[in-house]
């Protein structure tokens, strides 16, 4: 579904050139849930923007559904760290924004409206359709944002630390909801995070990136049955083992640097 070959990204900053990403080769299969994990400044958000077509790569190639990425695609949605809701629009009309912007859609507006109601119900926001964003809590706002990124049934969802600004409890709730939605919809998801817990709970595969320049350190498969949870469950040992391994991979770079 997503194919990155020899992707590199160089920025010309004020203090000279900065290599944000180097030699990234990654193939994400259809329906797969991949998390990109790494310290801040490892270029994981940049990588996501390359896939989204928001930024052209300096070198290498990016393809989605076997087509080279030249700009944002209709079947790829992007979810940000902050809810990024338009403050003057109601919850429902925020969810409908993508449909309104890109009129060349295949379904009628009424069909999308029904879908919007369905999605809002799925995340427990029925009855809030006419509210304005500032009337909602941070977690509820991010749920609206999730509905917005699902409204056009994307093939690929790109998520840039979408839960990192939320409190721990809301965060757990939302990652459980995301798993549930994922199991229903079979969307391909690339999810950026700096939280090991989140990576382990959500991913089929975890890509560990090293900082400056961002390179792929390792790819870890996670085959713990779903739905996963951080709470007491049958797979506590597996979750702990993989968490420990990711932890080691993330801190290894540091010891290498010291040498």
């Amino acid at each position, binding site marked *: 579904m997503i194919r990155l070959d020899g992707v590199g990204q160089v920025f010309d900053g004020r203090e000279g050139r900065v290599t944000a990403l180097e030699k990234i080769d990654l193939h994400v299969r259809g329906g797969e849930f991949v998390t990109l994990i790494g310290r801040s400044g490892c270029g994981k958000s940049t990588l996501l923007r390359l896939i*989204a077509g*928001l930024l052209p790569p300096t070198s290498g190639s990016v393809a989605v559904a076997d087509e080279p990425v030249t*700009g*944002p695609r*209709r079947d790829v*949605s*992007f979810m*940000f*760290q*902050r809810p*990024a809701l*338009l*403050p*003057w629009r109601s919850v429902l009309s925020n969810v409908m*924004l*993508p449909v*309104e*912007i*890109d009129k060349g859609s295949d379904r009628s507006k009424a069909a999308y409206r029904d879908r919007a109601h369905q999605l809002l119900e799925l995340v427990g926001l029925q009855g809030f359709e006419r509210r*304005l*964003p*500032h*009337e909602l809590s941070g977690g509820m706002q991010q749920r609206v944002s999730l509905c917005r990124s699902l409204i056009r049934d994307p093939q690929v969802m790109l998520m840039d630390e979408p839960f990192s600004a939320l409190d721990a409890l809301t965060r757990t709730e939302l990652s459980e909801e995301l798993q549930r939605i994922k199991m229903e919809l079979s969307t391909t998801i690339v999810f950026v995070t700096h939280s090991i817990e989140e990576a382990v709970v959500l991913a089929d595969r975890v890509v560990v990136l090293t900082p400056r320049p961002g390179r792929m350190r390792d790819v870890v498969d996670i085959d713990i049955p779903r739905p996963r949870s951080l709470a007491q469950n049958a797979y506590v040992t597996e979750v702990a083992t993989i968490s420990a391994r990711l932890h080691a991979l993330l801190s290894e770079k540091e010891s290498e640097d010291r040498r």
Partner: protein
Amino acid sequence: MTKRSWLTSSPAAAVILPIIGLAAAIALWWGATVVFSIAPYLLPTPWDVAVKFFDQPGVLLSETGTSLLETLEGFVLAIVIGVPIALLIVRSVILERLVYPLLLMVNSIPKVAVAPLLVVWMGFGQWPKVVMVLLMCFFPIVISTAQGMKSTPTELVELMRSLNATRAQEFFKLRLRYAMPQIFTGFKVAISLAVIGAVIGEFVGATKGLGYVIQQSGASADTTLAFAAIMLLSVMSIILFYGLVLLEHLLLPWAQEKR
């Protein structure tokens, strides 16, 4: 724990408190004229002023109408010219550098100094007054509009890009809407200046308007009449200002929460 008092939380208090303040000021004024037995040609009592107004309400109200019309015409003209200029400035750095010092220069000129020139150029009709109002209002409207247009959060711009929004969509559905509260702040500053502009215009080469009335009453030492005209000017200013506040409340209900 401090309990919010009735005086800060109740909507009734929001109306009653300003009235009490106003009544107290008038009482103080009245008291001063009585206690220090000030001559009416120096400081008339509020009662004298009220009697003066109700002596010939039609005449004073028609003068008020003249000033109001000039104020509104100049204000609307300032919006019609100022907002597009601000939008152009925001779009082009070259234009901004070219025009900004010019705007600053024009704004720094004491407007009173220009009033006689305007009469020379445009005669004794309402135009020099309208242009004076325009000169007063122009700067705050341009500055606040430009500021507002620059304040769009990056994640919202990125959202629109990721949805493949056209430049026009990005402008109308995001940037302009987001700037509206700040544009309104500029309007609110400008409307008070507009009234001042009209009076300045009427001080020079006018045959009607409240500014003309004040000037004439100065010449004939009719302090009471001057006070009546000044009162009417303040009432006009207050009504115009709160009219804008009301309009903002109706048009931008989403913006209330941000303050």
